[in-house]
């Protein structure tokens, strides 16, 4: 009896510990949490005020935009944030579809970061409008030939899918929360509604797993489409530097690359703040780091391919642009991107000594910053070179723009902090299911010989 009872007691304790850990961000809001929340809130408020100033000024005259460079930070932020979102959703969906056993602790963080970045990123087409009240014309008088219209359709569809990807796995977790002692009545009622009467029966599990598989399968091509359509906003123009067939996949790879970096940073932040090292362990962070490195190579290859293809043909306009980018005006920024966004992260993760959570976190931070810079380099240099006639344009972001973009970045973190006040940071049910499957397979395989036994040649006796 004791032999059977002991592991079950241990398992129950482990389950209780997991439940407690998953709810730490929801239940424990210390002084540091509120300091961060208020600080970010202030940045977001400054951003909102800056947007108010932009509206009061009658449009983009308060930004650094001009006749030549008529797209800049807002478009770069749109592409960057949708990209961050794509990475989060793809990490969750692909790891689910491939049944990766280490996915459990990070899927929830990936899904929440995907939704938060998408919600904020989708605001930027509106922020870019001098007259945002005209957004309704996109619905009222759609131009079906315009990539902008399809951008809107793709982003809204992707938003729905991301929301479903987050909400469906929350059903069993909400049931767990519903039964958790020490929660307020309001929260308990909310979880009771969200749990839909989940009892963990086989038919419920089957229905949920089927739905999750369908959504995970759908979200992969959908995310590819969203970012390809987003790239069409640039590549379907005849402007040198934008009109490129590689832009679709280039945007998609860039999106996943930067998105994985966001997931790494978010996972590291929550792991440290709420002492979740036991669940979001070093192996999980390392695996994400490897994924990021592979994507970094892919993005470097795409960058090389783009430059080589355009440079080889040697059309005057494109060569001027490439010279400007690589050797002249924008060279410091371009090489900063190559060094900090591609080489440094790979180096940090390649060497065992720096392949620590801190090193991988630094690599992820560099990737996020460098990829934002790259988006600016995609948008601004081709515009600064006039297509018909006139002098080369220049662009310096205004204080209003910087405030709005900073406010948006703060908004993403705020949304994540807010959501994790209600949502368990770890996908508890999923982790338990994975553990159950592993325990079953361990049982089926029987006891495994120890390394020592193998070394002593005792395997046959085991």
């Amino acid at each position: 009896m004791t032999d059977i009872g002991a592991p079950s007691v241990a398992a129950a304790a482990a389950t209780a510990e997991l439940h407690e850990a998953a709810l730490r961000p929801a239940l424990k809001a210390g002084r540091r949490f509120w300091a961060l929340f208020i600080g970010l809130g202030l940045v977001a408020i400054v951003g909102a005020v800056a947007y108010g100033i932009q509206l009061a000024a009658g449009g983009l005259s308060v930004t650094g935009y001009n006749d030549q460079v008529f797209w800049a930070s807002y478009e770069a932020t749109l592409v960057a944030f949708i990209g961050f979102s794509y990475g989060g959703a793809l990490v969750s969906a692909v790891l689910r579809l491939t049944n990766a056993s280490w996915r459990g602790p990070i899927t929830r963080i990936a899904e929440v970061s995907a939704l938060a970045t998408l919600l904020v990123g989708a605001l930027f087409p509106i922020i870019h409008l001098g007259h945002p009240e005209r957004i309704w014309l996109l619905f009222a008088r759609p131009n079906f030939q315009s990539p902008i219209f399809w951008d809107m359709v793709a982003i809204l569809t992707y938003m729905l899918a991301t929301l479903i990807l987050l909400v469906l796995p929350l059903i069993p977790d909400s049931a767990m929360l519903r039964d958790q002692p020490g929660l307020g009545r309001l929260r308990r009622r909310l979880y009771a509604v969200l749990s839909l009467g989940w009892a963990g029966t086989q038919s419920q599990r089957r229905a949920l797993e089927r739905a999750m598989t369908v959504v995970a399968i759908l979200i992969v091509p959908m995310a590819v489409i969203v970012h390809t359509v987003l790239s069409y906003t640039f590549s379907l123009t005849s402007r040198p530097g934008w009109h490129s067939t590689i832009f679709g996949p280039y945007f998609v790879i860039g999106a996943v690359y930067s998105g994985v970096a966001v997931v790494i940073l978010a996972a590291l932040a929550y792991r440290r703040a709420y002492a979740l090292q036991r669940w979001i362990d070093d192996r999980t962070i390392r695996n994400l780091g490897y994924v990021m490195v592979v994507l970094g190579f892919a993005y470097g290859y795409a960058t090389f391919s783009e430059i080589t293809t355009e440079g080889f043909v040697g059309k005057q306009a494109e060569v001027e642009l490439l010279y400007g980018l690589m050797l002249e005006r924008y060279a410091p920024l371009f090489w900063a991107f190559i060094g900090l966004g591609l080489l440094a992260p790979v180096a940090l993760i390649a060497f065992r000594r720096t392949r620590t959570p801190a090193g991988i976190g630094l690599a992820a931070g560099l990737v996020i910053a460098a990829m934002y810079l790259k988006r600016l380099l995609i948008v601004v240099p081709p515009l600064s070179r006039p297509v018909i006639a006139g002098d080369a344009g220049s662009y310096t972001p205004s204080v209003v723009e910087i405030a709005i973009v900073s406010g948006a970045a703060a908004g993403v973190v705020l949304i994540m902090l807010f959501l994790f006040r209600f949502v368990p940071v770890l996908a508890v049910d999923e982790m338990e299911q994975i553990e159950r499957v592993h325990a079953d397979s361990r049982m089926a395989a029987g006891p495994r010989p120890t390394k020592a036994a193998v070394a002593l040649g005792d395997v046959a006796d085991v």
Partner: protein
Amino acid sequence: MWLMSRGSGWRRAVALAGASLLASLLLPANVGATHRGDVVDEVTMQISYQSSSLPGAPGQLVARLQVDDGSPIAGLIVEFWREVEFLGPRRIVLSRSTTGTDGTARLQIIPSESAMRVGASFAGTADYLAAEQSTDVGASVIPVPASPAAVADAGASLAVVSTAMPLLLAFAAFVIWLLLIGVVVTTVLAIRRGRAPATATRKVRS
């Protein structure tokens, strides 16, 4: 193992192949040089660009090969190229063409930029020395395809695509929305239906 056991024969075969290769490289040059008693003529190349009077229509890049006395040389291959500058000057071969009885080789081009350096090269043969010439051409207007009729035809067939494509995309988006909402609705219903433990349901049924 097979090569090792036949080591000496294999070495002989390699030596023979090497000798054959050397002979094939040297012999034609010797044969050509002696073909006309070691006389190699100097060749003059003239290059000109004849632009079209129609805006956007292709112009003709004409290279003429002649010997010193001005007589044209027929049947020689001329390579047309374009000079580009990206991290150093480089040539992109546009086409190769053979000179006719008047000694000219032609290439139709539509200059896509305001200034392009194009040229033609003759690599030389056993009888004639190599020659090369280049010139600047430029587009005064943005190039458009040459034949208005072809454009109209292409436009007519593409009109179907431009009408159908948005409809197809809209249909695809509609199907995805339907699928996503369907998944949510069926899952919610299935979870609500499956609230009773499975064992109890089976007992009731039995």
